């Protein structure tokens, strides 16, 4: 049971590939972190994995079935995608925005029922936003908007969850709350792919890492293998140092001359 993108290549403009021959697999019950410099193709890869973009080459297999053969609704029942920011021109409340995640479970002429609202509130509580459920989403801070979107993805109850920078714009407490909530969900069998610019998130919560550079795979494997100082320098272009304590906990910092 896995979400497998194999040999994916994608170009927005013909000939200019932002993804080249990427293979990535996440199993149910594990978190994979996608790292890479700005513009290295992380978001595009997520969008290919949920079927919003169609790669020019390669296939995405959802538990062995071809993703793009499924209807949009079936895809959404199996793969939830959480973009970086909500894009709506209108002031829906936080709870209305979160219950949008129930869309694949609600018929075309229907509205979310009691069970759907329950899932939405549970997801809101999980990210710690239940106190803001009736605020218009347009009045929230950047970090709170992210939390609302993550709650929407959780409320969708798909076995695979794709998160675009879930830890960006969040204070350390909220980063920890969100990532450990997601880690708990993987213990219940959820497969997660998350992009991040914080390698330490991957060290702390990740099971696998895929490091991208200019749309190509630079390294793949466990966080400790794929996030070595040399590979990080190759990915981002500046030197890094890895500090560790005797228990084996590690942290990645840019190398600073003092």
């Amino acid at each position: 049971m896995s979400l497998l993108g194999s040999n994916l290549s994608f170009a927005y403009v013909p000939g200019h590939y932002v993804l080249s021959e990427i293979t990535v697999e996440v199993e149910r019950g594990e978190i994979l972190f996608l790292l890479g410099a700005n513009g290295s193709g992380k978001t595009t890869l997520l969008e290919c994995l949920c079927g919003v973009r169609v790669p020019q080459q390669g296939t995405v297999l959802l538990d062995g079935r071809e993703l793009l053969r499924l209807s949009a609704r079936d895809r959404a029942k199996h793969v939830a995608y959480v973009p970086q920011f909500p894009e709506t021109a209108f002031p829906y409340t936080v709870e209305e925005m979160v219950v949008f995640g129930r869309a694949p479970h609600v018929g075309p002429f229907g509205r979310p029922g009691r069970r759907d609202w329950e899932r939405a509130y549970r997801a809101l509580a999980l990210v710690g936003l239940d106190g803001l459920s009736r605020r218009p989403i347009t009045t929230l801070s950047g970090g709170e908007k992210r939390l609302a979107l993550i709650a929407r993805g959780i409320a969708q109850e798909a076995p695979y969850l794709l998160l675009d920078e879930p830890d960006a714009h969040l204070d350390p407490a909220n980063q920890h709350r969100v990532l450990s909530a997601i880690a708990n969900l993987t213990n219940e069998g959820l497969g997660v792919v998350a992009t991040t610019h914080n390698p330490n998130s991957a060290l702390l919560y990740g099971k696998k890492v895929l490091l991208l550079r200019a749309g190509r795979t630079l390294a793949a494997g466990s966080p400790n293998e794929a996030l070595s100082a040399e590979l990080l320098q190759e990915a981002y272009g500046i030197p890094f140092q890895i500090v560790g304590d005797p228990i084996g906990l590690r942290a990645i910092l840019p190398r600073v001359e003092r």
Partner: protein
Amino acid sequence: MRAKGRGAERTSWPLRRAGITLLLGLLPLPLILGSLLLGRKGLSPSEVWASLFGGEVSETARALVLRVRLPRILAASLVGVNLAVSGAAFQGIFRNPLVESRILGVSSGAALGAALAMVFRSGPAGVQTCAFLGGLLAAGLAILLGTAFGGGILVLVLSGVLVSSFFSSLVSLVKYFADPYVQLPGITFWLMGGISSVLWRDVMPLAVASSLGVVGLFLLRWRLNLLTLSEAEAQALGLPVRRLRFFVIALGTLLTAAAVSVSGVVGWIGLIVPHAARALVGPDHLFLIPASAGLGAAILLLFDNIARTALPTEIPLDILTGLIGVPVFFVLFMRQIRRGGGWK
């Protein structure tokens, strides 16, 4: 169990919005009855009542109420409903609060149809039919053009603007060749909007289009909420975005074309009424659609009452909606914005 109780309590929260929606939805009914009293010949409430529901009343009064005033008043209400509801739906799917019901060129197309019908001397029924078909044609062209160039929202709006200006030029061309003493004034008056001389025969097709469009859009009310998200988000939530958007555009175009074919060009209603409704009941289309319908009907009815009674001759509707409506709503919205709500 605790979670269940909490869920139930939260879902009952929109009661206030539901109440306001109900009030707005029912607002046209007393206005319709009141409007029957207005007119050049004064009628007493008992005469109107007797004409409507049976009773002792002169044949002249009965004919005036049932054959002249009632169809016109119903037509005005339905035109208001159609413009406001299609405006609300278009603002939603184009994800832009500045869009209105005429965004896809419907009214320019309708104007061309009407102008051609007048030049070729067809009767009022012919003008209405040609206006309706012209409206559908223009929107159809805009959709075709938009789809040919990728089908994104921006492309659709752009092709709507292009088709709209192209058809406006065609209208000018027809006016240029029209008989300046007989046909040109007719075309000009049609372009300024108005609901005079409406018969039951004209109201019936309008009523059918209104019911189809409003019911269809109301059925899609929650999907409409989802369509206000970005295309990628809505797709990732499992929506067949393009197909749904097409249905919404088709229903909205039906509503607009049917309205414009009866009333001529009436601006502003399809832009501001959905805004006012959204400020009152929020952006959920469950409430927004009925609230827009009620408010649109009420406001257009008020304007039409002024149009037919204020001066010895008819005042064109588009002049009234612009001259009175725009300043009134400017003040309302400035207050709303200053209080920190509103235009977002």
